[in-house]
């Protein structure tokens, strides 16, 4: 064991268990993960260190509905650096009621492969 600090210590965000993962490189330079309680932890930690991805949720004003706002999210996580560019795209939205839960408001936003969907029904 080397006594230098590991590459990263992080908490897995895939579920509320929140495993504490230690990420380091071994002698061969391969990334090693410890502390995961399920097999999703390893690819998560590797990705989290090399290229973190996040989901994004916000809400946008609705025209003509019973509610002022409709909440939205992405269908899958995107590279973290895409959050603010995507927020700027979402900010241009002014969807009109009625809106169905799961309705796609922007398909494949900025080419990320994620859709922006409504997360509630507005009548």
């Amino acid at each position, binding site marked *: 064991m080397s006594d230098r600090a590991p590459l990263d210590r*992080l*908490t*897995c*965000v895939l*579920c*509320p268990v*929140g495993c*504490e993962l230690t990420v380091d490189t071994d002698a061969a330079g391969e990334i090693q993960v410890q502390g995961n309680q399920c097999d999703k932890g390893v690819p998560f930690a590797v990705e989290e260190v090399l290229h*973190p991805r*996040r*989901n994004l*949720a*916000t*809400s946008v*004003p609705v025209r003509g509905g019973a*509610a*002022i*706002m409709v*909440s*939205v*999210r992405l269908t899958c996580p995107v590279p*973290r650096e895409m*959050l603010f560019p995507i*927020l700027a795209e979402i900010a241009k939205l002014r969807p009109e009621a009625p809106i169905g*839960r799961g309705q796609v408001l922007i398909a494949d936003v900025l080419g990320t492969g994620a859709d922006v969907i409504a*997360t*509630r*029904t507005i009548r």
Partner: protein
Amino acid sequence: MSIQVETCDVAVIGGGPAGLAAALGARRAGAGKVLLVERERTLGGILNQCVHDGFGLFLYKETISGPEYAERLAEDVVREPIHVETGAMVLDLSADRILRINARAGYKLVEAGAVVLAMGCRERTREMLEIPGTRPAGIFTAGSAQNLVNLQNLKIGREAVILGSGDIGLIMARRLTFEGMAVKGVFEILPWASGLERNVRQCLMDFGIPLELGMTVVEIRGRDRVESVVVAKVDDRLAPVAGTESVIVCDTLLLSVGLIPENELAKRAGVELSPLTGGAVVDETLMTSAPGIFSCGNVLHIHDVADWASFEGFAAGASAARYAAGERPGGGAVRITPGANVKYALPQIVTPGASGIEWSFRVVRPLRNVQIVVKGKATGRIFARKKFARLLPSELQKIKVRAAVDEDLEVACRE
């Protein structure tokens, strides 16, 4: 003038994640006439303003947002012949299970065979913390800020300081950042974060928002609007240390300093409350000290995951249905008390001879490589033990006892 009097088998007070599940649980356990009362115009409770992702992993086996979780659960309720009253406020509840309701159609009384309390919780306020200073605009609890931003499209300020590291505060740090506000820091009086670790990472670290532990706000300044706050380090007894103060310019202060079960109705019905949880003392059927009145979700004890509030709701609803059908629980006589490092364990009382009971518990401080032990107080017999690599006060945990319980128990944490 005659007052309308109705009857029902099970009345559920509150239509959030716990109450919706309780109504469903009651129906599935055979209750004929189920009434669900919600004071807001829409079902779902606080879930409607929790637009972020991370709900439903346990109930729906996928991660969805709060509004989606609420709608899916509410759709299940609406499919059942459950009488849903939204925009209706329960004004009073008596020990003999008479509800006084201010409903949309007017005032009415409901006699219920059984009642499920699912009123959720409130946020602690500046007044409860007694933060000195002026009384300007710009001070919000994190949840009310969440409501204003997510549901009402209001901009609440430009530069914010957040006091307390509860989950809603952490989530609002990210939310305000998305809205273009500068979040200057999250100040937590304790030496550890109160919210879930994944929120510290996703909501603060991702955006370079500092988390200052062992610090608090000691003064609020500003005449009409917040102009700055004074923060200071605290000592071991959480008292501010003179000479460590610094001024942070901001126009907004968010408070995320704890939640309190909203038990005004429970008190009216004479329900015994626990000083450790702020909620009712319950037995293994989630029945309170008032026969036929059950409790679940955040009004019983504060949950960090909505799914667990719903699971508790399903169980409380089922128990209420059985009570309404004439089944009587054995009557709790065994007491369960928290031991070393454990803040509380729930249920607090159990019917002698009951088996397969699962306790929810919380620890008082972060712990590593510990064992939770459920032990007989008289005999010292070990009823259950479970190892944990790590326990945090922010995380509600569970431990199950398979054997029949026949003596007072202690739930303790051995290091």
